């Protein structure tokens, strides 16, 4: 596990790609601050969402958990370790400077209810029973292979982890069908993860035409903005808080249920909106609207409400 911010992750992007391709579990906390470059290093943003989702060269994509509170930072840290080991891949926990460095009230953290998950790790006894194993073979149909830990006392335990092309036995290969098979298995593993990640928090409003979609610390401004919209404008909106990437199918259903969905986020380029557009049904893409806040200060309810009201007036 390592904790860093955007620049640290940019610096180590090559390692994250290695982790993805060699399938090494790692948990990375990103306390997002304002970029690009050194940016506003003491100010807050949600500017690393798109970069981390697809970090490193080649076809790569990574699991992300997105907490909105200190309680969720704690529970998602626990979950991130389990997911990293179960899916043998890097997992980002997307905090931000507001959450990571300011004082927050909290109800207290809950003790984990489940034992730690170490995923598919074979012991020397397992290897005796199986007679060996293929590191990158999809035995169970979920895209996840079995691994051994260094130091396992068995002549069949060792393998060479490499960032270069490899076959199911972890041996160097440039064969086209081997490369494609491996890349497709990694994509399948990513799909397996989709339904295993924290679910979105969805608050439906009966018959609402307007939906609001947000994530992370933007949540707190949305809670207040939903009140303002109802009291000041008489608009009752649905709300969906995305808590992970890849994005749950429930989120796409939420978008489909609303005529207009305002994606509120703390960056200039509508990064979550871009991720949604990559996967949303073409027919629903036109429902997505964007509300952006990127001046380095935590987003406030009034800015969100005003932006939604202004855009609603044009509809």
């Amino acid at each position, binding site marked *: 596990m390592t904790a860093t911010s955007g620049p640290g992750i940019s610096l180590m992007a090559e390692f994250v790609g290695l982790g993805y391709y060699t399938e090494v579990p790692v948990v990375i906390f990103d306390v997002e601050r304002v970029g690009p470059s050194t940016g506003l290093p003491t100010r807050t943003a949600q500017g690393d969402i798109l970069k981390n989702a697809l970090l490193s060269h080649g076809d790569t994509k990574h699991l992300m958990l997105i907490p909105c509170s200190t309680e969720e930072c704690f529970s998602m840290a626990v979950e991130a370790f389990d997911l990293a080991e179960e899916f043998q891949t890097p997992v980002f926990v997307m905090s931000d400077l507001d959450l990571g460095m300011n004082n927050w009230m909290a109800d207290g953290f809950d003790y984990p209810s489940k034992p730690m998950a170490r995923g598919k790790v074979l012991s020397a006894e397992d290897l005796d029973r199986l007679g060996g194993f293929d590191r990158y073979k999809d035995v169970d149909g979920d895209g996840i292979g079995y691994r051994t830990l260094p130091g396992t006392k068995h002549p069949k335990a*060792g393998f060479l982890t490499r960032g270069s092309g490899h076959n199911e036995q972890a041996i160097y290969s440039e064969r086209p069908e081997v490369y494609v098979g491996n890349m497709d298995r990694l994509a399948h593993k990513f799909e397996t993860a989709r339904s295993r990640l924290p679910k979105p928090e969805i608050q439906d409003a009966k018959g609402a035409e307007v939906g609001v979609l947000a994530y992370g610390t933007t949540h707190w401004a949305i809670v207040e903005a939903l009140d303002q919209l109802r009291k000041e404008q008489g608009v009752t909106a649905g709300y969906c808080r995305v808590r992970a990437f890849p994005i749950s199918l429930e989120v796409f259903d939420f978008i489909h249920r609303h005529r207009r969905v305002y994606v509120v986020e703390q960056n200039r380029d509508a990064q979550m909106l871009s991720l949604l557009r990559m996967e949303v049904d073409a027919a629903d893409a036109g429902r997505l609207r964007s509300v952006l806040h990127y001046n380095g200060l935590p987003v406030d309810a009034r800015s969100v409400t005003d932006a939604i009201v202004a855009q609603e007036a044009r509809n």
Partner: protein
Amino acid sequence: MATTIMPPPAPKKVNRVGLEQADYKGNKSTLCAGCGHNAISERIIEACFELGVEPYRVAKLSGIGCSSKSPAYFLRASHGFNAVHGRMPSVATGTVLTNRTIMALGVSGDGDTASIGIGQFVHLMRRNLPCVYIIEDNGCYGLTKGQFSATADLGSKLKTGVVNDLPPIDTCALAIQLGATYVARSFSGDKKQLLALLEGALVHRGTAMLDVISPCVSFNDHEGSTKSYSYVKDHDEPLSDVSFIPYFEDITVDYAPGTAAEITLHDGSRLVLKKLRSDYDPHNKAEALRLLTASHDTGNLVTGLFYIDTERPNFIDLLNLVDAPLATLPESRTRPPKSVLDEVMDSLR
């Protein structure tokens, strides 16, 4: 009926853990024929066989480059990790921290170590992480057609005639100055010296840094190169004759008083340095650095064990880790009970 009596097959030589030398081999090398790196892989195989190293206890680690491909060519049964360019040290550190019983055997090159990886290299040296760090040093980037690396000597010439006008980084001097505790230089073609130095390095419990001059037959083995086979053979100036005596062999070595130095390593194995210059003390940092500095002026390649310190605590000692490998600790030892979390929460209310 005639019968032919076949002679019984010659018994295969096995080491003290019951393995043959062939058990320490890897896949067939894809490096150029005659590459010094292949000779180093062979010495690693021999050293591990002779010491009776159990392959499951070894982690082979490397970065990127010709050198870094070589872990596939020895110790097939061991775990290996081919990291990103210049960043084998961080992977080695993680490996040893999560399992302190593992022997980390790192293979890097001069490009991997002395340019992109120099930041990681210096911190590994100063931490004195228990590991072997081999630099397969050919003074050039062999995978990209032989451009000079940062260990190329001043005045050395490329095949194209380009002359190197920047001074080399002496990785041995750097390692000694930073705190590595076993520092040596050798030549891939000197089987006896390299084997003894490797065996000593594998037994040493601290950072053992071996810079092995390993000629690149494709791009840096011509007239005018200072890392060619012929140049190294002509200029090799061994500091001493090195012999390694493992702790499990009861061998006494005869030498006249004052003609050899004997160094006892952590497990009781010994390194015997014969014909060592009478005024040279391998426990003296300043002397080692003086020797290396002087060798740059003469252009001679001094090889041998420059520096050793068997007393300095290594990184694992300093961290005061539990004896059991961290990677295998059960949940009862890695997750504090609910009462601990409750106590922390109560203290914040």
